């Protein structure tokens, strides 16, 4: 195959792009691919998401019935299937995150070393989320206190957690 950019060299780099839902393929020689990719100083990460997804899927469930089941999971909002996601490497809508939760958590851990957001929170949901984060931290502290046999501290933490849980329930009822 000949490079689509210069029409001279042999194409050794094959890029699949999804544009407006349509798939397009780009076949470039090494030099043109470099010019393409690097001249715009793009921000996008350098590792291949496809490889990451591929290895992740391959390892966890090679050819099993489970794999087949999971690949058919479909996002109820945008109709993207998990098989499509793992091919494209892009999610379809915010609903996909729930639909593919089971698979996304390990994937995000691979990419980021974590699957839990600790940064900024939209002001609109700030109160509730800060509350939930605080509660979660107290629960962790409690576990630690019990492990270390600091029972006085543990009792105190348990009371605070109970109070917060009660507050949360009342909030939901309102």
């Amino acid at each position, binding site marked *: 195959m000949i490079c689509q950019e210069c029409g001279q060299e042999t194409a050794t780099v094959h890029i699949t*792009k*999804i*544009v*407006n*839902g349509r798939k397009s393929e780009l076949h470039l020689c090494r*030099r043109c691919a*470099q010019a393409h990719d*690097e*001249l*715009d*100083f*793009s*921000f*996008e*990460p*350098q*590792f291949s*998401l496809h490889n990451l997804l591929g290895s992740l899927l391959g390892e966890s469930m090679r050819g099993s019935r489970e794999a087949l089941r999971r690949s058919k999971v479909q996002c109820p*909002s*945008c109709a*993207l299937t998990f098989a499509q996601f793992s091919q494209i*490497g*892009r*999610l*379809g*809508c*915010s609903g996909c*995150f729930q639909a593919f939760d089971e698979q*996304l958590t390990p*994937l*995000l851990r691979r*990419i*980021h*070393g*974590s*699957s*839990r*957001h*600790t*940064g*900024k*929170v*939209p*002001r*609109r*949901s700030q109160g509730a*989320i800060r509350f*939930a984060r605080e509660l979660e931290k107290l629960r962790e502290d409690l576990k630690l206190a019990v492990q270390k046999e600091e029972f006085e501290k543990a009792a105190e933490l348990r009371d605070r957690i109970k109070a917060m849980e009660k507050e949360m329930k009342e909030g939901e009822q309102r």
Partner: protein
Amino acid sequence: MKEKQLVFSKWIEGNGPEAETVISSRVRIARNIREIPFPYLASDAQTRRVQEKVAKAAASQKDAFRQFSFKPMENLGALEKELLVEKHLISPYLARESQHGALLLRRDEAVSIMINEEDHLRIQVILPGLQLEEALQEAERYDDLMEAELDYAFDESYGYLTCCPTNVGTGLRASVMLHLPALIMTGQANRLFGALSQVGLAVRGLYGEGTEIIGNLVQISNQITLGQSEEEIVRNLLGVTRQVIEQEQAARQALLNENRARIADRAWRSLGQLKYAQLMSSQEAMQLLSDVRLGYDLGLLKGVDRKLLNKMLVVISPACLQILAGKELGPEERDMERPERLKKLMEQYKESV
């Protein structure tokens, strides 16, 4: 098409902290609107709705967005869009392939908000020198303004939801553009870049045919967006950048001590070529500009300043040359136009001092 005056972005002032090494600092955050599919899957009507919603959000906050202009991609000419790409104000994707893509651009071109890129919103800030924290602050200010009017896709455990899993969480990508002639010249750069990739940072350079980095320009950016707060991400990058600056400065001192005459000779010769050459590729121009910049930073050369050098770095790119010439130019014509434009900039500078 008529010959046009070029507007330069704020970063070219070259007046930020650590300007001897850091050309610019850039921060962008990705955001999406709940209930609407990400742009590549969204229908024509849905992407149009995104554009309208964002335009309305800006219009309803007149004071905050007074300095902004709204530019739908379909209203711009091909060259105009390429110029915005070259200035890093929009991505090639937004310019060429997006559906109802648009740009909200602040007059000083330090803040640009891309609409219907890979995500519904990409808020970007570029400042001169090492100003990552300032850039983050500015980006978050516009993020808050947008959030006041738009219902963002956010998940308690995953954070801000984005089209690509590599942006999930903070949606934050921060980067610095560094000029590292001494580290590259002395062969210390590759080891350093290897070490940076070990700590979750990406290093990018402009590579020519070989392995050498054109113009000695290198961009370092974070890869991780989830599990660290925005401040942590920026602080990490800031810390690493400071170390790189220190090493570059040490390498420059060593060069100065051992090879002063050679460095000065190279800087002056390169300036001579920039002044008198008749044909010039962009790669060659970038290398010459790097030599001159190093000479200027080491105090070995006069007759230029950082702002002029930054302007020269901008005008050598293809769309810039064509806009300035007022007509389309092929590659060979551009190689003729390039030295002309550089000469003009140097003359203007001479008259201004």
